[in-house]
């Protein structure tokens, strides 16, 4: 009886330790880093075209996924937090791919061809990529 109780207590202790370790690691789950993910490769024009054709279908394909977009820069700005934002042209002059970069500064130039990898948030006026990094 005494040994049974001891085993029970040991099991209980193991359970508590493992449980709190799991909780701890879940709680401290690292931030998603797009640099470690392989992006779906697509051109800015194609991405916008797919979103314009059918937003729901495009969201199924791209929403929350890492995407590697090739395009031409039309505008570089910064947001209210000081992060750089890069607009890529599509075939439609009124819309593009708007990327918020992870970093505050960028040496990218307007008019240059660029490859950017980011996480797709969906589409407002433009298709939005967040947490983006410049690949090339």
């Amino acid at each position, binding site marked *: 009886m005494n040994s049974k109780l001891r085993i029970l207590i040991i099991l209980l202790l193991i359970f508590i330790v493992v449980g709190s370790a799991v909780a701890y690691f*879940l*709680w401290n*789950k*690292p*931030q*998603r880093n797009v640099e470690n993910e392989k992006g779906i490769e697509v051109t800015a024009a194609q991405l916008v075209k797919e979103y314009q054709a059918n937003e729901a279908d495009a*969201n199924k394909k791209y*929403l*929350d996924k890492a995407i590697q977009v090739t395009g031409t820069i039309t505008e570089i*700005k910064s*947001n*209210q*937090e000081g*992060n750089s*934002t890069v607009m890529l042209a599509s075939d439609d002059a009124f819309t593009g791919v*708007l990327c*918020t970069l992870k970093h505050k500064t960028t040496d990218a130039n307007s008019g240059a061809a660029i490859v950017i990898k980011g*996480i*797709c*948030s*969906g*589409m*407002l*006026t*433009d298709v*939005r990529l*967040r*947490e983006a990094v410049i690949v090339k």
Partner: protein
Amino acid sequence: MKRIFLVIAIIVIAALSVNAQKIYSTKMGKISFFSNAPLEDIEARNSEVESKLAQNGQVIFVLLMKGFQFKNQLMEDHFNENYLESSKYPKSDFKGIITNIKDINFSKDGIYPAHVKGALTIHGVTKGVETDGIVEVRGRKVTARTKFNVALKDYSISGSQIGKKIAETVAVTVETDYE
């Protein structure tokens, strides 16, 4: 003859004043929210908000739910998957009007109190919202700021983990610089 000129002059002036209705806009407005939780406060911000503010008082904000960033990845996952179902409802918007727009002089620098009334759509549910904020005019730059509370049950937000882990209302802060 004189009368015709007068009529034409009035029409021209009226047309000009309609054209003078300037619209301020941005694609990078900021909206954040804050919620008290027993374990840790929940805070997130979205710096990719599209917004327009017209001199006639019309305002609109549109944002993508996935654009909210948390300092904790687990919170972000729970927010999107359990509570807001962001894949099903990717957007939120607010369409409204500044009811006291006549008190705001866009050609004179200052901080003007603004009363806003409109409809807020979150999680596929639309509800009326009324709040006080300010419109700040500095040169050609206009900034809109407001704070209001959102009751989660108003928008049928009741994730599988809701229990007592998160508060029933969250405080939403809008701080948007227009171009």
